[in-house]
């Protein structure tokens, strides 16, 4: 066994690329490949999928990913760990076993970690971090506690080639294999903090290896279309070198690592996970070779006393619709369309909720922050509203489409979508209220 643990990331969100994950496994000897595929809203949507069909509720790409990765991971000595179980880890395990059998991989074992779903144990009086009590909010779709290393270790100890979970803190997916390899105590806060830095850097996939980074002329990324997924070579002291798939596109340097180190981080001295309170403020980032960056210097303090819970609620519908204007006087025609739409929605249909109408090409993403420039010869009106009922959502699409014949001259390119929504809130739960358990399935 090598003195270092090599752990790769082959997905940083639910819809991440697959070909690059296959390349990483084929081109670099990994002990572990982690697929992090579960955002807060992704999980809430998964709960709704499961409610509609009890056999669903796991990552919709699971079978495709397993078909591509199961034939190569065990052969390369790489174990697979993923939160693709989402709202239904057992069904994800069963689906994985089915794929393994199709592929002729008899004997392949899949460990499933259960127990993160806590909607049954939450008290209705549970306070929500956003204000109010759980019982005050209608439309609960699911509640999941963020499990951590402590709950993951028994699943790893099964020796199964594949481990599937539901809600686990993203960095913990990477920290657990390190703890299992190096035998760190669960109160060795310095090591757990060092490992959490590594997990945090890897958990968003290519965001540390050249994705979400390129700014032509300022920050160049070679062969972005062939960007490689990252890996870490971790030492027994928790310090690590971050790299990426050999021969792939992308970039790992002190800048890509620095940007990712503070991605979604608030107080750099107190990054909270179920495992540790990690202090990123003195982390050192050193380039030690081409596309190789060493990270060290994390500090740790005791873990939080409670587990974080994410609660998902039905969120009604988001309606979006657009129509475009181009050529001479396009901005004036788009502005006229905007005022027509506002008047129709308010005065004719009595819609009184928030209605946002952006003029893409003049100002859209930054329209609240900055004023609107006067001119553009290619402008798209983009309207959006949220509604509890589908009929109101449909009304927006109808009114925007009607601008084609009833609005200003030359409008074209109507599109409209209505997408069901979920919302999320957070709560705290004493650790002893979760009852994690592991089931092992065999192909």
């Amino acid at each position, binding site marked *: 066994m090598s003195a270092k643990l090599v752990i790769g990331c082959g997905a940083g969100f639910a819809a991440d690329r697959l070909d690059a994950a296959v390349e990483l496994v084929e081109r670099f000897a990994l002990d572990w490949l982690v697929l992090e595929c579960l955002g807060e809203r992704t999980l809430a949507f998964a709960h709704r999928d499961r409610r509609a069909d009890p056999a669903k509720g796991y990552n919709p790409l699971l079978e495709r990913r397993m078909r591509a990765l199961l034939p190569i991971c065990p052969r390369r000595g790489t174990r697979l760990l993923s939160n693709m179980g989402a709202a239904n880890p057992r069904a994800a395990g069963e689906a994985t076993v089915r794929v393994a059998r199709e592929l002729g991989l008899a004997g392949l074992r899949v460990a499933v970690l259960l127990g993160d779903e806590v909607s049954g144990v939450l008290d209705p009086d549970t306070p929500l971090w956003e204000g109010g009590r759980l019982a005050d909010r209608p439309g609960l779709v699911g509640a999941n506690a963020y499990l951590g290393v402590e709950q993951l270790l028994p699943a790893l100890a099964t020796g199964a080639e594949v481990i599937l979970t539901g809600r686990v803190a993203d960095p913990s997916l990477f920290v657990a294999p390190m703890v299992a390899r190096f035998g760190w105590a669960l109160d060795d806060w310095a090591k757990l903090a060092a490992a959490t830095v590594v997990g945090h850097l890897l958990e968003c996939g290519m965001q540390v290896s050249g994705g979400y980074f390129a*700014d032509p002329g*300022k920050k160049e990324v070679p062969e972005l279309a062939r960007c490689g997924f990252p890996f870490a070579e971790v030492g027994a002291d928790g310090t690590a070198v971050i790299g990426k798939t050999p021969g792939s596109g992308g970039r790992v340097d002190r*800048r890509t690592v*620095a940007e990712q180190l503070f991605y979604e*981080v*608030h*107080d750099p001295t107190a990054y909270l996970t179920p495992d540790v309170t990690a202090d990123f403020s003195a982390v050192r*980032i050193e380039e030690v070779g081409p596309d190789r960056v060493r990270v060290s210097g994390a500090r740790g303090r005791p873990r939080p006393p409670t587990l974080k819970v994410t609660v998902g609620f039905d969120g009604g519908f988001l309606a979006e619709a657009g129509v475009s204007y181009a050529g001479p006087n396009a901005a004036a025609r788009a502005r006229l369309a905007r005022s027509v739409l506002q008047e129709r929605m308010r005065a004719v249909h009595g819609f009184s909720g928030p209605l946002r109408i*952006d003029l893409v090409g003049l100002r*859209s993403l930054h329209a609240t922050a900055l004023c609107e420039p006067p001119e553009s010869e290619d402008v798209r009106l983009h309207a959006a509203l949220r509604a509890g009922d589908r009929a109101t959502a449909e009304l927006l699409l109808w009114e925007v489409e009607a601008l084609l014949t009833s609005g200003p001259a030359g409008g074209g390119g109507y599109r409209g979508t209505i997408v069901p929504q979920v919302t999320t809130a957070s709560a705290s739960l004493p650790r002893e209220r979760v009852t994690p358990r592991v089931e092992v399935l065999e192909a």
Partner: protein
Amino acid sequence: MSRRLPLHAIAHARAGDKGDTSNVCLFVYDHRHHPALLRAVAPERLRAAFPKLLRGPIRLYELPHLHGVNLVMESALEGGVNASLNLDGHGKSWSFLLLSLEAELEENEPAPAS
């Protein structure tokens, strides 16, 4: 004499979201521009630049050894991805909103390399 230039000329940035709170970390390309970065993104300056967007407290964490800062801006995402009607409900583009701010280089601070 001091010189004015877009912050984008001397710094790079990344934005993240949690609920209605946006965080943007910024780093200078040349460590000698770190003081100019600190001046450009001082919380009171941000609030004055974008009063309709940044409606809550703003905390600035200095990262001197990395020549950067981490800005944490509460009530800065038009309700966040649960509620915002912005096409960019996560505020992913807030990084480049901040990079559009003007920075001012003092006489003893070098011009950017490119």
